[in-house]
C-alpha cells in the first residue's frame, strides 16, 4: 500500500496493516497478503476478533507455520520467493546493496526515483519495499465499504469480514490447512457486526 492508500495513522486499519507488514517481514516474504493480515488479526488477543479467530482454529504459532508452508508452495497471494533470497542464490547481497544505495543517494532515494520523471516508467524491483498484494487491497476496500455502510470507522471485525469475502488463494489455503470452517467463521463475524450496529 503506498503512502497515499495507507489507512489513517492510529486507526484500527492502520494497526492491522502495520501488523500484517511485520508478519510479512518476519517471515521474509516479499509481499504482504491476506494471509499476513489474518495473522495480524489473530495475534491481538485483547480484541474480540482475535479471540474469535483462536476459537475458530486460527492458533497463532500454527497459523504462522502454515502461512510459511503455503507461501513456500507458491499458493500465497504473492510471489513464492523473496527478492533477497533469489538474489542470494546468485551471490548478490540485497541488504548490502540497499545500505550502499542509502549511503550514496540518501535514505529516501528509491522513493524519490519513482516520484521523479526518470523513474516514472521504471518497473518495480528488489529495491522497492514489500509489495502489497492486490487481494489485500481488495480486502481493505471491502472492509471500508462495510464500515461506511454501518456508519462507523473500520474495526477488526470489518477487516476479517473483508478478508473472508475476498477471493484470496493465500487465505483460503491457510484456512483450509488449519481446518477452519470458512462459512461458519464468516457467519460468526457477520453476527457480531450486526449486534454491534
Amino acid at each position, binding site marked *: 500500500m503506498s503512502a497515499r492508500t495507507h489507512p489513517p495513522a492510529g486507526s484500527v486499519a492502520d494497526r492491522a496493516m502495520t501488523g500484517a507488514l511485520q508478519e510479512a517481514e518476519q517471515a521474509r516474504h516479499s509481499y504482504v497478503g491476506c494471509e499476513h493480515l489474518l495473522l495480524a488479526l489473530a495475534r491481538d488477543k485483547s480484541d474480540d476478533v482475535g479471540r474469535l479467530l483462536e476459537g475458530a482454529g486460527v492458533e497463532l504459532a500454527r497459523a504462522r507455520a502454515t502461512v510459511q508452508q503455503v507461501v513456500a508452495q507458491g499458493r500465497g497471494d504473492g*510471489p513464492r*520467493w523473496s*527478492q533477497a533470497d*533469489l*538474489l542470494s*542464490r*546468485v*551471490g*548478490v547481497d*540485497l541488504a548490502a*546493496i540497499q545500505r550502499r*544505495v542509502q549511503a*550514496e*543517494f540518501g535514505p529516501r*532515494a*528509491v522513493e*524519490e*526515483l519513482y516520484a*521523479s*520523471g*526518470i*523513474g*516514472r*516508467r*521504471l*518497473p*518495480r*524491483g*528488489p*529495491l*522497492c519495499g514489500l509489495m502489497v498484494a492486490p487481494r489485500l487491497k481488495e480486502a481493505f476496500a471491502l472492509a471500508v465499504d462495510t464500515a461506511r455502510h454501518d456508519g462507523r470507522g473500520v474495526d477488526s471485525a470489518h477487516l476479517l469480514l473483508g478478508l473472508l469475502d475476498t477471493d484470496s488463494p493465500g487465505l483460503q489455503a491457510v484456512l483450509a490447512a488449519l481446518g477452519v470452517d470458512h462459512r461458519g467463521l464468516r457467519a460468526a463475524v457477520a453476527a457480531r457486526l450486526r449486534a454491534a450496529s
Partner: protein
Amino acid sequence: MTEAIELAAAAGNRDPDVGLAAVVALRELLAQLEALQVMAARNDGWTWERIAAALGVTRQSVHRKYAQRHRPGRRST
C-alpha cells in the same frame, strides 16, 4: 547488463524455476541501480549525451528510456 545476467544464470541454481526467477530479480535490480545513477548524474547537471556515453548506449536510447516526454519549451539535453 547482458554479461551480468549470463554470469548469474551460469552461477545460479540448477532448478530453472528458481534460477530464472533469480535472473529476473537481478535484471530488475540492475535497472533500478542504473536509474538511480542516471538520476544522480542529471542532478549533477550531466547531459543525456554524457550519460549515454558512460552507459555505452546511444543518446536516443537513454533519452527514450529516462527523459520526461511532455515538457514543451524545455531543452532536454
